[in-house]
Every structure is written in structure tokens, then in C-alpha cells.
């Protein structure tokens, strides 16, 4: 069956080609492949929709995420509260929308922060090689083997819970991955002849690394940033669920799920925690689809 449809597609292409209808498109092959990847497009749409909803929250809800309304505790979804309320009367819809702002900020901010540090170090150390490279590599290995939970617990115990502490920890545990990826790219690009030509002209090492090599390595790094964002959002959720993340008053998706630790809420007030759980899942999946699409499109070995 598959053979037949492939054969038919070929026939159509042949017919079009003979008629001169096909021209080498100037549109980038990468763009074309991304647009052809339906999952990636769906992911992008979902992502954009959710970002608009969260950052444009005042347009979509009248409630404040921190407003307590003790007369309306644990109200199931109805016309005034679309997703009901929790134990102290917070409007769940508002909490999810405003919470999204924080979660997305943590996820994306940590990913970009980790990338800035990891990629800069990876580019320079990877190109220079030698002692510098060995030392940073060992250091990154130490960082990577450190269990994140323990680190979080220690820092929370010392400085207390806060948004910025969390971002700090995520960057601290996230940069080694970026560093190693950037470094491996550098190691392979370093052997290209155009780099050797620059060395023959005596161009400075830092210029070669950042101006000439980095643009060729940037593709996989962008993919990594999107996937890291998803990962950090999940990590924030887990940590907040355990009570180690952002303080309870600030709404984040993870904090909202935290209440599900209480068995009664878990069983009888699904509207409090389930929507947030679904939102996290859908958002992370969307980002993963985008990341996969980017990776497949940028990969020159994939035939299309």
C-alpha cells in the first residue's frame, strides 16, 4: 500500500517536472521542512496560544491569583469561576494563567541563562583545547553528577525559597549540558579547512571561535534551548510539588499541583489540580514537538 502511494507521488512529481512547473525554490530548505512537519506546527500554535493567554492574563480573567475568598472555598467549576476555586478561595483559572507567566519565565530564563554560560565556555574552551579545556570539562562533570534535589534542598534551607534561587540552581545544574554540546560542535568544526585558513592568516583565537565557528554550531544549540525550557518547567513543577520550589503564595503551575498531596483534594476536588497538570503536559509536549521539528529540519543527513 505504501509502495503504491509513493509511486503515485513520484508520478505527480514527474508530470510536474516535465511541465516545467517545479523550480528550485529559494525558500530555505529548513523552513520548508519545519512547515511540513505537522506536529511541529501544531506545537508552535499551542505554544503561541498559551503564551498569549498567560502574558495577556488580565484580558482573560477578572480575578487576581492571590485574592482570597473564604466564602467560596472549594467550589466546583461554575459560571463565575470557570475552573472552580481551591481551599482558600483562589480562582483556579486565574491562578493557572498568572502561574503560567512564572513557570514559562523560569523555564525559558533558566534555559537561556544556562546556554549563555555553557555556550560561551564551550566555544572558547573547545576551540583552545589544552589545559583550560580539561579543567572546565572536569568541573562540568562534577557539576553534572551532583544530584539536583540535594542542591536545591541545601540552598533552600540556607536562603529560603525564592524564584531567583530556583533559577540560579537551574542554571548551575544546566550549564554543563550546554557546555558539552557546544564543545563537541567546536571540536568538529575546528578541523574544517576554513578555520585552518584563518589560522594561516594569524587571526585571533577568540575571533575565530566566536565570529567564525559559533554561527555554524548554533543550530543544535537552539534546539537544546527549547528542549531545556521544557525540562526546566517540569523540574520546577516537581520541586514546587515537593515544596522546595517557589514559595506557596506565588502561583506557578507546580505550586498549584502541590495541593494534590492532600488525599481529599486529590480524590474529590479534581478541578483544583488536574487542569494545571494537563496544562503542564500539553505545554511541555508542544515545546518538544517544536524542538524535534527544528532538529529534524536542520539535520542535513535526513532525506526529504
Amino acid at each position: 500500500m505504501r509502495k503504491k502511494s509513493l509511486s503515485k507521488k513520484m508520478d505527480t512529481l514527474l508530470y510536474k517536472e516535465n511541465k516545467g512547473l517545479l523550480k528550485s525554490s529559494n525558500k530555505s530548505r529548513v523552513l520548508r521542512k519545519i512547515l511540513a512537519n505537522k506536529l511541529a506546527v501544531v506545537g508552535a500554535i499551542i505554544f503561541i496560544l498559551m503564551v498569549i493567554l498567560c502574558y495577556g492574563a488580565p484580558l482573560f480573567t477578572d480575578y487576581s491569583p492571590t485574592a482570597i475568598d473564604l466564602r467560596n472555598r472549594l467550589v466546583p467549576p461554575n459560571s463565575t469561576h470557570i475552573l472552580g476555586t481551591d481551599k482558600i478561595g483562589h480562582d483556579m483559572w486565574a491562578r493557572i494563567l498568572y502561574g503560567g507567566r512564572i513557570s514559562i519565565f523560569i523555564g525559558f530564563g533558566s534555559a537561556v541563562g544556562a546556554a549563555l554560560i555553557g555556550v560561551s565556555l564551550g566555544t572558547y574552551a573547545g576551540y583552545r583545547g589544552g589545559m583550560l579545556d580539561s579543567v572546565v570539562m572536569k568541573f562540568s562533570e562534577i557539576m553534572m553528577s551532583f544530584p539536583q534535589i540535594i542542591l536545591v534542598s541545601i540552598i533552600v534551607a540556607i536562603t529560603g525559597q525564592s524564584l531567583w534561587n530556583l533559577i540560579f540552581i537551574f542554571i548551575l545544574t544546566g550549564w554543563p549540558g550546554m557546555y558539552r554540546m557546544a564543545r563537541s560542535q567546536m571540536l568538529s568544526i575546528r578541523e574544517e579547512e576554513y578555520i585552518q585558513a584563518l589560522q594561516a592568516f594569524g587571526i585571533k583565537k577568540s575571533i575565530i571561535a566566536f565570529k567564525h565557528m559559533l554561527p555554524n554550531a548554533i543550530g543544535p544549540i537552539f534546539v537544546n534551548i527549547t528542549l531545556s525550557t521544557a525540562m526546566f518547567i517540569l523540574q520546577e513543577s516537581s520541586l514546587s510539588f515537593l515544596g522546595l520550589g517557589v514559595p506557596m503564595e506565588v502561583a506557578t503551575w507546580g505550586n498549584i499541583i502541590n495541593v494534590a498531596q492532600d488525599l481529599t483534594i486529590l480524590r474529590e476536588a479534581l478541578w483544583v489540580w488536574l487542569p494545571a497538570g494537563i496544562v503542564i503536559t500539553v505545554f511541555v509536549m508542544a515545546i518538544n514537538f517544536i524542538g524535534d521539528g527544528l532538529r529534524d529540519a536542520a539535520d542535513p543527513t535526513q532525506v526529504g
Partner: protein
Amino acid sequence: MEGDTIIEVKDLSVNFYTNLRCNKALRNVSFNLKKGRILGFVGESGCGKSVTANSIMRLLPELSRIENGSITFNSDKGPIRIDKLPKNGSEIRKLRGSDIAMIFQDPMTALNPVFTVGYQLNEMLLTHTDMSKKEATKKSIELLADMGVPAPEERFYEYPHEYSGGMRQRAMIAMAMACEPKVLLADEPTTALDVTIQAQIFELMLKLRDEKQMAMMLITHDMGVIAEMADDVVVMYMGNVVESGDAVEVLTNPIHPYTKALLDSIPVLGRGKNQKLEPIKGSTPDPFDRPKGCQFAPRCDYATQICLEEMPKEVLFNKDHKVCCFRCKEFNNGK
């Protein structure tokens, strides 16, 4: 019998469908592979020589198709139409290795690095014959010795990365020869090897041709290799056969302007500093944007109006010297 045609390719056309475009990689390619003779395929990159060999073995990539033409293998059981066989069906898999074998350019990537060479040789024998493992091992070691691999009993148990480039190519030839195929397709087998090793491999191939009366197809871009090894030659350009025939005849009496231009543009060992090199003007066209008519016409010094509009047909000169050019009779009479 020497000279018998064992593979006949007629009007073979193959299209590639990648990047949502259609590339007419081969058009109306015809030639015969004969027993006990080496058929040299020469042409520059993009001319379709590897595609031709892959078509015979049905190893073309997914997004491609044999549009028309025929590939006939004259086996002991009668003629088999290879182009009609299902792509990865059992019939073609039976033919591959036992009747028609192929060796490739880069022996490092053609041999599986995680298995010993002996294991891979045995695999070949065990798939196509009824031998037991012990018998296969014995035969494999004999094969390695025949192909000139020193200390074959130990080499049998080694991995490809422990072999040198020349030895790996010999191991690959041993694998190809394991089931005594009647045809050997060699796709640039020595391009990646040093010149002194290349000479050894060619000596081996000539020995195989003479002792086993094998039909060989030798693909190369190096005219020197053709001059040294080929009995018959096919010259290809942009997917078309432009000239073919007996090697001595074609190379001493080239008729097609491309063949002549190619021979004039390469430095020949022994002719010294003052030989005249004539580069071919222009460059090969984009395969997705091919010229109408004769593919070489835009670069040909002798092109006329009809050359730019229509594809020339094959003209037969003495014996089997074939040329695809509108003005070939003119060029031939000028001699």
C-alpha cells in the same frame, strides 16, 4: 565462454525524487557485461556511473525509481529480468552475493566494525550455501589467502580496524568472491588507496578475471585506470552514455567531442611539462536544471542548433564502437 553477454542493460532510465524535485539521473543507458572482460565506466561526478551499478544490484535509495528499460541477467536457469524483481525480495537477495557481487570505494565503511572479518566472511557463505560453520571457516581462510592477505589464519579473527586500507579492500574482495559470483561490480575500488596498493589490487582483479572468467564492471573517474585495466569502455556524461566500445578503439580513436575533450584535459605521465592541456570550458549543469537536447551541447565546441534541442541517437561504427552524437559520422570521416 569468453565474450558471452552475462548482463544486458537496455535503455535504462532512472529518476530520483528528492527535495520535491525530479532528477532524471539516468537516461536510456545501454551496455553489455561480458564474461572474462572488464567493462570500464568512466565519467566525472554526477554522470550516473554509481547509479548504474546500484540499479543492477537494486540498491537504489527509497526515493528513486527505474522508469523504463530492462536489466537482464543471463543465469544458468535462463534470463532473469532484474528490473522486474521486487526491490528487496528473496529472488534479488539470492542473486546478490552468489551471482552478482559488488565492492565499494571505502572499505572501512563497507565492513562492519563491530564484527570480525572472519564472521562477516562466514555470514556470506552461510547465507548462500549449505556449508557448516566449520567448513565455512576453512573456506574463508582459503579465500583470504587467495586474495593475498598475509597470515590468514590469524587475520580471520581480527576486526576491520586492525587491517590496513589495502588489506580491507582485499577482505572485501574476498567477501565478494566467496560464493564464486559470475559478475563483479567494482565502484571506484581503489580511489581511496595509495598508488602502490592500487597496483596490487588491480593485479588481483586481473588474476580473477583470467582464472575465473568473471565479468567485471569497473567504475572510475581516472582515465589511467581505464587505460590500464579496461577491455571495453563506456563513457558517461550527465546520465547518458556518450560513447562505448572496445577500450583500445575508443581511447585511440575517440569520436564523441566529450571523450576527446576529456582525453585532452588530463596530464599523461611521461609527456612532460610541455604537453598541452585543454580544459573543458564551462561546468557540469545543475542536475535539476538540465539542458534540453544533448547534455554536453552547452559546452561543446561543435554544437549546432539540433544539438541544443534534441537528444542524439546511438550510431554504430565498426564492431561495437557506439557514439551518441548528431555529428559523429562527420567526425569519423574526418579521420
